[in-house]
């Protein structure tokens, strides 16, 4: 013990601690993660109460959406929000930071997850309930939200692993042979990617001596060039594998069509975007010098991914595998934004990610309804669904146009920003590839539409012959499957007509990533300058 003269405060609050409590309103930064984590625990306890599971999961995700909306409004008003755990002063404590990028990603992810929670009621059987679909879904959302909101690079790794282990569980839920096969490839490659990520963190820690993102952003400018390039290259490789960018994209179409449709939709919407988000966060905010040096590599990755994604979709007969290749094409567009690295590029990329999370989730869900009506995954035997369910064809074509970036849907606006960014930078390779990607996506996706809805009957049969293997949707499937999908597509259409706030938010996100003064000062607010 110290001498009796030492005051109580001096004993308990040495200079490395924050004095005073975090303002109650600032706790909002951890709410999305905490709610998901506690919700998952609650649902594990309620695992034998099947009717309660989905209701509780829905309410919890709704609460997460509300906190994300509030978070986004706060960030709009006051700039980045930060909170450091355990009263340790940053950079020593683990910091949670919500800037515009993180808040936008987290909000769209929770909206997509909410639709999936409702849709999942249609297709889960008793076994999947018992093995914990809803707890795993909430854990996945917890990992995803944590990745978007953390301000500490090692903590980002931990959230990646939370997300990964939850996705393993969801992927093999049901335990069909094809799922085991997909999970082996998904499991090994994603494990390898996180190991690479950890290696990169080790190097970065060796160079800068800190793990706090804001602190690294301050210090990386003075770091030696060689080690910095090594670390940046490893980060790019690791996030490229996580995001399924070419040439590390093979695991995605091998795995994403094997589980239940609800799980596919969740993965297609959320998981790869986390990889892209991390690439933006690390290479733009933390290591801008590394991004500049790696620009030719990122350009090659972006161009190849943008072209090969839709071409892969064109060559598929399996509907969900084709959508998987469209996911990859979208990742190429996100990397194109990273290549540009200007305000238009980064802003366009962030808005594209919002669009991509919502649109691809909806795309998988519509595909799932088509599969239920036709009883097959093979587009050659799906013909004639228009005669059975015409509204579905409208949903599908809206999503096709949104994916390709045709007006007036949501996909148009980020593409315009990206192309404008490319023209301003004089980067004609990116501009040409972006437009080519739109064209190829349109061809691949509308070809799916034509085969599923436009033509009648099986492939090879005369088109006038009706396809008698199709069935109508039951009232349950309409209420719990079609209705939420319509709601999600309606959201995409409305956002497409009123994109102003989103474009403004994307601009703020880009500025905060490119010139992180506001981000850094939010993290280090209240730290005595020594």
């Amino acid at each position: 013990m110290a001498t009796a003269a030492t005051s109580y405060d001096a004993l308990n609050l040495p200079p490395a601690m924050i004095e005073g409590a975090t303002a109650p309103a600032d706790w909002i930064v951890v709410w999305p993660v905490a709610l998901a984590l506690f919700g998952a625990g609650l649902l594990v306890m309620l695992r034998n109460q099947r009717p309660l599971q989905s209701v509780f999961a829905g309410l919890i995700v709704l609460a997460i959406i509300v906190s994300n909306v509030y978070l986004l409004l706060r960030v709009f008003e006051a700039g980045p929000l930060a909170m450091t755990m355990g009263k340790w002063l940053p950079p020593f404590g683990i910091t949670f930071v919500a800037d515009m990028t993180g808040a936008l990603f987290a909000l769209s992810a929770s909206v997509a997850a909410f639709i999936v929670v409702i849709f999942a009621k249609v297709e889960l059987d008793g076994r999947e309930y018992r093995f914990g679909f809803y707890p795993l879904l909430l854990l996945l959302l917890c990992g995803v939200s944590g990745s978007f909101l953390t301000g500490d690079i090692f903590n980002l790794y931990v959230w990646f692993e939370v997300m990964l282990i939850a996705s393993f569980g969801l992927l093999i839920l049901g335990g069909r042979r094809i799922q085991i096969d997909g999970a082996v490839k998904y499991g090994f490659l994603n494990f390898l990617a996180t190991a690479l990520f950890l290696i990169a963190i080790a190097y970065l820690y060796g160079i800068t001596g800190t793990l706090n993102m804001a602190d690294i952003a301050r210090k990386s400018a003075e770091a030696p060039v060689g080690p910095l390039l090594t670390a940046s290259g490893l980060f790019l490789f690791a996030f490229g594998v996580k995001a399924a960018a070419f040439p590390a994209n093979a695991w995605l179409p091998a795995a994403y069509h094997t589980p239940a449709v609800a799980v596919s939709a969740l993965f297609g919407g959320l998981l790869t975007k986390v990889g892209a988000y991390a690439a933006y966060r690390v290479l733009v905010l933390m290591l801008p010098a590394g991004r500049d040096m790696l620009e030719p590599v990122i350009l090659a990755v972006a161009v190849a991914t943008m072209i090969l994604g839709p071409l892969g979709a064109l060559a598929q007969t399996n509907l969900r595998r084709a959508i998987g290749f469209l996911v990859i094409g979208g990742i190429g567009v996100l990397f194109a934004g990273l290549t540009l690295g200007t305000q238009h590029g980064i802003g366009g990329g962030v808005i594209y990610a919002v669009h991509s999370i919502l649109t691809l989730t909806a795309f998988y869900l519509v595909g799932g309804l088509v599969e239920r009506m036709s009883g097959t995954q093979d587009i050659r035997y799906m013909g004639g669904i228009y005669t059975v369910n015409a509204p579905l064809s409208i949903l599908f074509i809206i999503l096709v146009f949104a994916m390709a970036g045709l007006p007036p849907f949501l996909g148009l606006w980020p593409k315009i920003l990206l192309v404008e960014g490319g023209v301003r930078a004089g980067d004609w390779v990116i501009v040409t590839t972006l437009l080519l990607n739109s064209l190829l996506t349109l061809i691949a996706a509308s070809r799916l539409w034509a085969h599923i809805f436009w033509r009648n009957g099986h492939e090879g049969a005369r088109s006038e012959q009706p396809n008698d293997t199709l069935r109508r949707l039951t009232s349950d499937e309409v209420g719990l499957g079609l209705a939420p999908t319509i709601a999600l597509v309606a959201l995409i259409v409305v956002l497409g007509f009123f994109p102003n706030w989103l474009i403004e938010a994307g601009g703020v996100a880009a500025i905060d990533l490119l010139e992180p003064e506001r981000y850094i000062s939010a993290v280090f607010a209240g730290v005595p300058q020594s």
Partner: protein
Amino acid sequence: METALVGLIALFFAVSLYLLLSKSIIRMLLGVAILGNAVNLLIFTTGRLTAEIPPIVPEDAYAPIQGSANPLPQALILTAIVIGFAMFAFLLVLGYRAYQALDADNTDNMRLAEPEDAPRPPLSY
């Protein structure tokens, strides 16, 4: 000391990459286990190896003594070990299930999700 550890890490990475390139799931699992250890040792080394002064703050000071060991890499490694262990356990069970359900330890024979003789895309519109 650093040089010796770096050599060991390089050896671990080489062995794990060689094993991961194999077609046999069992060998890949061993590769995963060794890879995890290689990464942990790397974190340990990048935290700098210092003399044997325990990182304990003396009674009358606010900071540890100059030159004391860096405790942070050990916290990081502890986290990474726990996570890596969980992942390895899952992959081990997954590999066993794959052996049971697909009757294959060779990845070449795991073509259920991506059939080898996949049909060509339809040529009509």
